[in-house]
């Protein structure tokens, strides 16, 4: 059995670790609340723009937007959203597993992939594994602005418009609730046309476009893609904080259990030492 002093040292170090994990848990909890609020705040825009796009599908636009054109897939693009920091449980692992799986699947079908990555964690992993990275972005912080994300979005949208990639997937985490986040793979481009019902289609109408259909639709599509990615990043942030909170909570609980176990071992060791000492003293006294 380890001696009492060693165990005392261990208890101390575990207690210190627990203090840190507790603090991180509480920080994550308060950040999570704010991240969730932001996520909810961004929702109306996403809903509205989808609605406008839906109206557009009912109408009969004069031309099909390039970002809506479906082509045979020869090359794929990925936009991967990960966190900048670790200690958030399996969040990034799940996202990256999805990426690897999908890339491999496509590879077997003879389709190569280009990747654009948001977040340090995904960046490190994918770079180590020799993925073909075309754009990267990190250090977004807790309150990202849409403007910060234009880089990777542009890179992917432009590659799509130029025909360098024929499909773009968005891989990130969806916020289900505090305990549960789900890694998802969604098709970002080509934008799937919202389907209008036959009855809606029967009414022939189209928008008046000012100045012209093309620039307005370009702008709309660009905003739409941006809003989808923005939403994903914001949501991922909320996921990160809640995943971290849960991870840190279980770390704190484990530390607590460990301290209890060590305390027991310490008490036993202490008692054993005392017993032994008494035995030695009385043995010594008997010998005199």
């Amino acid at each position: 059995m380890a001696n009492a002093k060693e165990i005392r040292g261990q208890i101390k170090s575990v207690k210190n670790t627990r203090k840190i994990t507790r603090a991180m848990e509480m920080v994550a909890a308060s950040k999570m609340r704010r991240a969730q609020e932001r996520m909810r705040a961004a929702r109306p825009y996403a809903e509205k723009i989808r609605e406008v796009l839906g109206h557009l599908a009912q109408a009969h636009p004069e031309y099909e937007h390039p970002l809506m054109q479906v082509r045979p897939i020869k090359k794929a693009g990925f936009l991967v959203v990960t966190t900048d920091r670790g200690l958030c449980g399996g969040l990034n692992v799940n996202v990256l597993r999805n990426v690897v799986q999908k890339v491999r699947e496509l590879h077997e079908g003879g389709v190569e992939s280009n990747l654009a990555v948001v977040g340090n964690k995904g960046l490190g992993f994918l770079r180590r594994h020799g993925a073909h990275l075309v754009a990267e972005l990190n250090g977004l912080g807790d309150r990202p602005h849409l403007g910060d994300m234009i880089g990777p979005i542009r890179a992917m949208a432009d590659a799509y418009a130029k025909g360098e990639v024929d499909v773009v997937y968005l891989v990130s985490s969806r916020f289900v609730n505090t305990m549960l986040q789900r890694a998802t793979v969604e098709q970002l481009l080509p934008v799937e046309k919202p389907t209008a019902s036959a009855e809606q289609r029967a009414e022939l109408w189209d928008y008046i476009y000012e100045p012209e259909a093309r620039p307005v639709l370009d702008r709309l599509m660009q905003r739409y893609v941006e809003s989808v990615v923005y939403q994903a990043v914001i949501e991922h942030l909320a996921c990160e904080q809640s995943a971290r909170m849960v991870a840190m909570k279980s770390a704190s609980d484990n530390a607590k259990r460990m301290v209890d176990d060590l305390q027991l071992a310490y008490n036993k060791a202490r008692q054993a030492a005392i017993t032994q000492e008494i035995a030695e003293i009385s043995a010594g006294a008997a010998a005199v």
Partner: protein
Amino acid sequence: MAMTIDVRVVSAEGSIYAGVADMVVAPGEMGELGILPRHAPLLTGLRPGELRIIRGAETEYLFVNGGILEIQPDMVTVLADSAERATDIDEAKALAAKQAAEARMAGHTDQMEYAAAQAELLEQIARLKTVQRLREQGLLR
């Protein structure tokens, strides 16, 4: 018969305004648009400027920094790049940003930077104009 339109102003960072109005005046790309109920469906870009939502005797002033405007006969949707209530505009800040943009435009010949500074300048000018109008109408201070 009283007719009204539903108005929704949203930006990526949140919902700014939702309500009904008698008339909406928006800064369209091709010029200012006055929208009354039963307007024909229309889709246009917005430039930075003042958005007025008129309901009875009251007028709500908003500042939108570009975006997209969708009009349906009974509904107006403003997808703003960013928007704020006109009374929330920080005039001093806008003025400072305007001057900074002017300085950048004067100092740089790089096309990208020049264009960015120009866009910023237009935004701040529009913002300041909105504030001035409010003041003229005695709605501010």
